[in-house]
């Protein structure tokens, strides 16, 4: 009889679960700079540009510039704010909360959001309405009647917003696709490019810079007859463009200044054009 309450208490304690996690309130984090290198991280769309600039910086940059794997625009902003990296990369305008972090925003140019296709796809372009219907599941073939496999980027991807401005109704169609869960979702530019290369008939959204930097095996499709290029970005005719920027803390600006100056130099602009980006106007 004496054991019964004890056993009950033991049973209750055993299945009482663990204590809950701490509050979700963001905490300030301070990380010391790396004295050996300047670290750059953020949007995957800017990573090819940053790597090309870092490789070409040479003597203009006293400290070596290390471009990390993509952590997304949001991750780049947070990492820069915490001092985890010296420069963050962002391929969208700052959000409301991000503006309150009081970071320096240095324009990095423009990127063309494009529809890329597997190299075996025979069509050269796609209509905006067809793209919307493919996402909505209203059609399953490309213009030549060949089957199409639509690959999606994650919901928070800035390329989605840029493309939605160019193709009316695409956002709602993509939401429908997310809800149905039948289309594969990729979380980074690199994984999107890899999936496009590996999947016959695949089409998906990516960055012109990401393709120009090293994936000639993919085909860039014209959208409603327009072909993405630095020239159409420059003259404003390419409708799916997104702004690129470098973000950095004011108290760490000195460490990153040589790299950003090089990026904004004529040599930096030449490198950007070569990589498929429209350089920022000085």
């Amino acid at each position: 009889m004496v054991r019964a309450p004890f056993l009950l208490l033991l049973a209750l304690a055993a299945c009482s679960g663990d204590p809950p996690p701490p509050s979700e309130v963001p905490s300030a984090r301070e990380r010391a700079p790396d004295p050996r290198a300047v670290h750059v991280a953020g949007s995957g769309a800017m990573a090819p540009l940053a790597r090309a600039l870092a490789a070409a910086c040479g003597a203009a940059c006293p400290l070596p510039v290390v471009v990390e794997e993509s952590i997304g625009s949001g991750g780049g902003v947070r990492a820069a704010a915490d001092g985890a990296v010296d420069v963050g990369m962002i391929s969208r305008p700052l959000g409301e909360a991000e503006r309150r972090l009081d970071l320096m925003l240095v324009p990095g140019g423009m990127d063309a959001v494009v529809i890329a296709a597997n190299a075996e796809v025979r069509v050269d372009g796609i209509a905006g309405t067809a793209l919307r219907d493919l996402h909505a599941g209203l059609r399953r073939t490309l213009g030549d009647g060949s089957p199409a496999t639509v690959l999606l980027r994650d919901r928070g991807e800035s390329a989605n917003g840029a493309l939605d401005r160019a193709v009316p109704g695409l956002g709602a169609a993509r939401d429908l696709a997310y809800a149905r869960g039948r289309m594969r979702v990729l979380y980074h530019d690199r994984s999107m490019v890899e999936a496009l290369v590996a999947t016959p008939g695949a089409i998906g959204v990516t960055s012109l810079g990401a393709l120009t930097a090293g994936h000639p095996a993919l085909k860039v499709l014209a959208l409603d007859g327009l072909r993405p290029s630095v020239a159409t970005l420059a003259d404003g005719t390419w409708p799916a463009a997104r702004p690129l920027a470098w973000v950095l803390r004011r108290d760490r600006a000195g460490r990153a200044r040589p790299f950003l100056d090089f990026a904004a130099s004529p040599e930096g602009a030449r490198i950007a054009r070569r990589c498929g980006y429209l350089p920022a106007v000085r």
Partner: protein
Amino acid sequence: MTPLRLTSWFRARMLPLVAATAVVVATAAPGAFYLRERWDLVNGARGHAGRIGEALRGEIDGRPTLWRYDSTKLAERLAGSGLDRAAIRLVDAEGIPVAVESAPLPARPLWGRVEVLIDGRREATVWVAADHGALLVSAGELAAAFALLALGLAAVLYLLPVRAIGRAERRIGLLLGRLTLTLQEEDRRRIARDLHDGAGQAITAARLELLALRARGVDPEAAQRIAHLLDEALEEVRRSTAALVPPALAELGLARALVRHCEAFGDAAGLAVECRVAEELPSLPAEVETACYRIVQEALANTARHAGATRAWVRLAQVAGGRLRLEIGDDGGGIVGTSRRADPGGQGIEGIRERVRLLDGEVALESHEGSGLRIEITLPIRLSQ
């Protein structure tokens, strides 16, 4: 007679026992189900957190600092690890929450936690929330079902024996009452017999001796006075024995005894009493015969005392179902219009009721103001054992 109070005694002891049984039945199985399921939930959440921790380990190892900032990559890692989407919370080694794609947090989370260790150092802690609310609903539904079951079981466990005890108590009370009545009648018969055979015979003998003395010339006046006193004593003994046991019943049988009583009572009370007894009555138990005779005596006396009646009647017959019907009526003022009103359930009627109840019979009174009273009694011909 003092009530047995068996039922209330039994109720007082059964109620806590039945209540305790009901509580055990209502709570044991749902409680065990709840604890078992809760155990599974917590362990499931911990297991899920452990698998997420394994998926994170490579990410943390490869990028010790920047892994915290790449929620999409973390989500991809977790999605690629083949786990169901869960409500996840992630905290780094410094205890700061890390943004990660997560299913919505359930309203009543039950957390399972696992630490991600690399080279023995805690690099992150993963929490996975299980939906405790759904378990509470399931356990609640089960508890409700078992509560109903317990209620039904308690009702059966309580009501069946209590009813049986109640029936037994009533039966025991009836038998005890009947036994008391029988013993009472037996005592009366014995006393009457003793009086008749003892005192009565002695007085009669003394009287005869006294008369013999008088015949021999011994003070005839004194002998006459003593004889007179002995006559009075003898009459007193006869009256007492008649009150104890109706002698007519033993001498004449129920039917003729009733007829004689009605005639004698009518003459004495100045009341026209009609007595109609069925010619062929079955053989009746002594208790029933005595009860019939006493009831008629009591009812007629009651009529004479209270009813202001000019006519009364008594009817006795066998009716269907093996029962006797005894009907006594009068043309008096009824219960409402007479002094019976002040004592409608008084000793007379109440005594009749008690006698009838002890024999498992029924009494019905019918009375209308100014139109008399009719008492209808049914009694079993055979008494139950």
